[in-house]
Structure formats: C-alpha cells, structure tokens
C-alpha cells in the first residue's frame, strides 16, 4: 500500500515537471524583414480597331462591284498592353460573293504595310511584335474575277478580321510566337 502511494506520488511529480518544462522552454529569437516587395502581372490588351474601310482600285464603291474589279480593305488597331506582344490577325470571307461558284470573289493578299504576309501553322497572319502605344495595320486585298457570271448580280459578301495578341516574352520562336 505504501509502495503504491509512493509510486503514484512520484508519477504526479514527474507529470508536473513535464508540464512545467514544456511551459517554460524558450529560445531567444529574432527576425528581420525586407519590406515592400512589389509584384505586378503585366497586361496584354488591344484597343478597338479603326473602322474597316474598303476601296475599289478603279474607283467607285464596294457596294457596286463589277466583275474585274479589285481593291483593298484596311484596318488598324493600337496595342495598349504593358508587356510586349505578338499581334496576329485571322482573315475570313463569307457570303455569296465569296462562295457562289468557282468564279467567286477572293482574298488575294494580306499585308502589313508593304509586306505581304503568309499564314503561320495555325492559319493566322503574324503582324509583328508590338509595344504599348504602337499601332498595327492590316490590309486585305481582294478581286472579283472578270469571269463571274450574271448569277453574281446583287450578291454580297463579307470580310471578317479578328485580331489577337499574345505576350512575346517567354513566347518567341523565329519571327512569331511559340503559341497563341
């Protein structure tokens, strides 16, 4: 009985010691801070394109095309992002004037300034690399074949452009982006 009480007493003292030790264990510490580290993600943004205007080389307007006419449509867009970027444009045509039969009107060239562009592997025309505030222009040349028959009278078509921008940093291969 005495031994049991003694053992319990020792156990109690031991537990108390452990608690006291845990509560009082401390080390000197210090810290130093480097303040105000700023991280800002850049932007890739396009302004609104200018109105898409078209002309006929021989004069007149594009609402009165005759077989044999050709001309060009132009549009420009200003790049407003903070990061340098590749700009590209997708070109598409639609409507009877461009689809009716084998003698349909067609897009003959896509240009950036005086340079005639070829589409990249994705079918997109790369306009070049641009910085904030710079303006990219695209010219779309078209022709309406002289062979077009009477079935084209009164027909119309549309040329649609879609501009795209993608960061150029960490995304450049050769003369264009690695990926759009």
């Amino acid at each position, binding site marked *: 009985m005495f031994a049991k009480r003694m053992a319990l007493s020792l156990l109690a003292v031991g537990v108390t010691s452990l608690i006291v030790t845990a509560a009082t264990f401390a080390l*000197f510490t210090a810290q130093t*801070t480097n303040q105000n*580290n700023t991280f800002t993600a*850049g932007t890739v943004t396009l302004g609104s394109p200018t109105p898409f205007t078209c002309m006929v080389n021989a004069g007149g307007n594009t609402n009165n095309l005759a077989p044999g006419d050709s001309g060009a449509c132009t549009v420009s867009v200003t790049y407003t992002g903070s990061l340098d970027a590749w700009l590209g444009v997708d070109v598409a045509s639609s409507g009877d004037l461009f689809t009716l039969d084998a003698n349909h009107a067609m897009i003959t060239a896509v240009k950036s300034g005086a340079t005639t562009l070829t589409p990249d592997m994705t079918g997109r025309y790369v306009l070049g690399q641009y910085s904030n505030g710079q303006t990219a222009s695209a010219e779309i040349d078209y022709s309406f074949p002289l062979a077009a028959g009477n079935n084209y009278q009164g027909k119309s078509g549309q040329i649609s452009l879609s501009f795209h921008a993608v*960061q150029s*940093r960490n995304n450049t291969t050769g003369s264009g982006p690695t990926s759009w």
Partner: protein
Amino acid sequence: MKHHALLLSVAAVLSSIAVGTAATFALFRDSKENLVGLEPTITATKLCLSSARDANDNVPGPMFYMTGAQGNNGSVDGRYPLSERSNTSPPTFVPETPGNWAPGDGEGNDPAKWIVRTLTVSNGGFGCDSVAAKLTHVTGALHAGSYEPLAHKMQVWIYAPGFGTDVLLAHASLSDFLTPTGVELHLGPGGPNPDIPGYSGIGLPPNLQMKFRVSFDRDTPNEYQNGNMVVDFTVHAEQLPNNP
C-alpha cells in the same frame, strides 16, 4: 508497525545531533559580500538580425520592384527594376518596354533567365553583441489591397551562395510563405538550418547572403493580368547554442 517505529528512532537521533551542534559551534568569523563593492553582473545575450538588399547596391530597400521609384530606399531610386532580369551582378540589362511580370518569367534551367535578388542577413553589429544564430524559416505578409491569388502563381527559391556553389535553402509557392509557419530553411534536403556566427563587437558583423529567385507560372490565365501584390519577407532565427 515495525517500519513506523524505526522511522521515529532515526528522527530522534538526528534531532539530538542538530541540537548538540548548535550548542557547541563558536568560532571567530568574518564575511564580505563583494571585495570591490560591485555587484557581479550576469547578462543574457542578445540575438539581433538586420538585413539589406544587396545587388551590388547594398541598401535597405525591397528586393523586387517594378519601377525604380518602388525600389527607393528613402533617398535613391532602386537601380534594378524588373527590366534587369538576369542574376549577374550587376544584373544584365534586358532592353524592353518597362513591363511587369509575364507568365513564364524566371522559369527554366537557364540561370541567365532567372530573376534573382540578394538579401544580406547580418547577425549583430550596430551596438549589439549577438549570439550565434540559426535561420529557421521565412514568412511573408501581404499588404492590404494585394491580389492574393497572384501568390499562388509565383514560385520562390532561396539559395545560400558562398559554399562554392549556391545551396538551395527552400523552394515553395509564394503562397506558402504567407502561412503562419512560413517555409523552413535547410542546407539542402534534410540538412541543418543555415547558421550565422555570433558577433563579439570586433570587425564586421557576420552575415549570410540569401538569394531570392522568383518565377511566374507559365500557365497563369488571363484573369491575373494587372494583378498586383506587395509582400514583406521576414527571415526568422533562433539562438544556435543549446538548441538541438
């Protein structure tokens, strides 16, 4: 009952000896508490860290900033905003429209494309004699108004140069630094904490250079554009002696 009687007998004998000693002890004696009249002083040591960015312009400004003004140290604009991107010292200038972080920045295995800034952590000095310290972890704190999701898209590596080659101390998402426990520092995987000797008031205070490399995940989507955050990095240390 037998035990009880024995204990009482021993107590009685001890009491008799004590009384007898007190009655016969008598000698000339003297005492002095302190021969020179000064109290002996025992002082606990100190642990005092300080730090400064060091990219060949050792000043107490932030390590990372977009513009020179953001890197101002109180009087002079920071010399190496983001457009200075390599880890050479001083960083090699990469001409580009002043830009911000782009996805993919600082990634890859080519050190020339890493974005690295150096923080020199000193132990003691400026009137503080300090005990040797071990650096335990680094925490980060976002300023109010910061775009917190951005932290999940940035990676941080911390290296210690000066060991022949840079030794990796930590690598984690910047968001991990924002937790209460931060990110632990170890000299290589499973290694000990890096330490800095104590300072006894002679010469320059000991220090450890810490390189902070940051990258921006390439898969970051468009909604992070123009996200901004301001982070305070804090290096924590403990006394090295008596600290297993």
